[in-house]
């Protein structure tokens, strides 16, 4: 009998070794617990999105039918049609796309320049400027919300234009100006990323360029920039995505314009019911979809560049 048990034990060990590559019961337990935890967490992360998608295809009867949980019994596209018309989706999408691309491109340009300058040149005030960049990240946006609102509502170029000023609200200008000057949404983080990235590049690259007679500007554009695509990619993508999602600044600067975040929150206000509304969910899916497509194509860059850009030094 003891022989049989020993036999069984060694059989289990051999099987485990072969099948899952673990060598002890403790190890197996660890693998199982880890799998359970990870699957659970992934479920929690993915759940809201899946439930939105499933609900967005449900007809009115399905929503009130308790036996329908995940798969709609009478699937319908009406929610999408309604949300499309209510949000004026076509125009809202175009506007949001234009805004996010413009903000992404401008933030990319300004933050790359600033990050490079901070990484590679020693000049008085350098530390101070870097501290300033971090400060813009740390200050809560609600502290500057009202002055910024006023300045763009009565924009007079800080006293240079005559009294009434120009109303720049409900235009792209507030976003364009702040992102072109590296003070837009989370630009401090992008400056930080670019600075870290350029600091990690070998100095001989520039020295070689200088010896071959390139000036600092030329060196930057034709030697340093071509070496930085991963960092450039991550800054553009994050800037684009965060601008796309942003509600805080959009609702302050563009409250009266039909851009997607405003359209979606208006949709929610108009159609929300106690059981949640399939139209709002359809709107949410349409809001996320463009980002999801981009993410699906470029997730490799998202994941890899976070490792590679040395986000943490």
């Amino acid at each position: 009998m003891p022989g049989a048990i020993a036999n069984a034990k060694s059989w289990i060990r051999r099987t485990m070794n072969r099948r899952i590559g673990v060598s002890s019961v403790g190890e197996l337990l660890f693998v199982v617990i880890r799998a359970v935890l990870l699957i659970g967490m992934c479920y929690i992360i993915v759940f809201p999105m899946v439930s939105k998608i499933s609900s967005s295809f449900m007809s009115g009867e399905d929503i009130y039918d308790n036996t329908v949980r995940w798969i709609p019994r009478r699937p319908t596209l009406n929610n999408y049609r309604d949300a499309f018309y209510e949000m004026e989706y076509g125009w809202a999408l175009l506007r949001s796309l234009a805004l996010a691309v413009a903000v992404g491109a401008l933030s990319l340009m300004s933050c790359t320049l600033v990050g490079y300058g901070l990484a590679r040149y020693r000049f008085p005030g350098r530390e101070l400027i870097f501290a300033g960049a971090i400060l813009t990240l740390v200050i809560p946006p609600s502290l500057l919300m009202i002055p910024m609102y006023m300045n763009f509502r009565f924009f007079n170029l800080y006293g240079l234009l005559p009294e009434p000023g120009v109303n720049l609200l409900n235009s792209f200008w507030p976003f364009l100006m702040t992102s072109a000057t590296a003070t837009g949404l989370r630009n401090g983080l992008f400056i930080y990323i670019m600075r870290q990235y350029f600091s990690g590049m070998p100095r001989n690259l520039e020295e070689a360029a200088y010896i071959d007679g390139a000036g600092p500007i030329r060196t930057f554009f034709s030697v340093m920039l071509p070496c930085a695509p991963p960092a450039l990619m991550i800054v553009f993508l994050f800037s684009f995505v965060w601008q796309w999602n942003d509600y805080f600044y959009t609702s302050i600067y563009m409250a009266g314009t039909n851009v997607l975040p405003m359209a979606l929150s208006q949709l929610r206000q108009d159609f929300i019911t106690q059981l949640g509304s399939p139209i709002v969910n359809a709107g949410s899916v349409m809001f996320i979809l463009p980002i999801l497509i981009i993410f699906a194509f470029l997730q490799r860059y998202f994941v890899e560049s976070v490792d590679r850009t040395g986000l943490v030094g």
Partner: protein
Amino acid sequence: MRRGRRFGLSLTSKMSMYGYVFALPFIVGFILFFLYPMVQSVIFSVSDLVIRRGGYDLEYVGLSNYRYALFVDDKYVRVLVETLGKMLGDVGAVLIFSLFAASLLNSRFKGRTLVRVIFLLPVIFGSGVIMRIEEADYRNQVLVMGTEVGTGVFSREALAGFLMQIGIPETMLEYIVNVVYGIPRIIRASAIQILIFLAGFQSIPKSLYESADVEGATRWESFWKITFPLLSPLILTNIVYSTVDFFGSPRNEMIEKIRATAFGGAGYGVSTAMAFMYFALVSFLITVIVVVVSRWVFYHE
């Protein structure tokens, strides 16, 4: 030297000039869109701001905006205290969870890329309007129904029922249910922190673990003796990041309160005063945390 003099610049100052050229966009932006509004913000908080045709008028009113926020507004102090309490709880939970999750994600297993991509999703969707809608829905349901309907990840009643069945005393029930209920929120708030810790794990030299292994250390020991000290600078980073992240997040009722006060509430002046007091308190908290934590932070170099 003489050649340099012709342009009035030596080589070093010429190079430092280029430094300013590169940093110029930010210098301009910092002054126009940060310092200037910051000063305005101070002025607004001690003024009565009235919009008129083509501009606005300011009238100095001393500290009355602050007094209004503290003593007249019936919600401000309560929301402030609640928000700070919630912030401390959330930051702690996020920190522990993200360290735990990052150490799970750091080990090798099949499907690691997929899991990492899923964990990245909240970075992309966890901010802005979708999150805001979800939070509003949640609050709405709690308000209307007193509890959440079956749309959440777990049903509250089912969980409470299950705990009762396995014999958890009723006094602990409420607490446990609340903790479990906070998990999805914490997970989604931890995305960036997990990435930061993950990068940190990867920067720890493998040789340290190997030599610890040779000396007979268990995994548990090498976590506390190697991983934890080497990650401690990142723990500090993550504490600061989580706190700052909480500032602007839609989970934060204070932000909503400040915005509601500005647009359609007691006015711009009171709203800025509220924002200032909130900011002062939070900066004080961050400073205390940084000072305390950095005492035991271990730097490798």
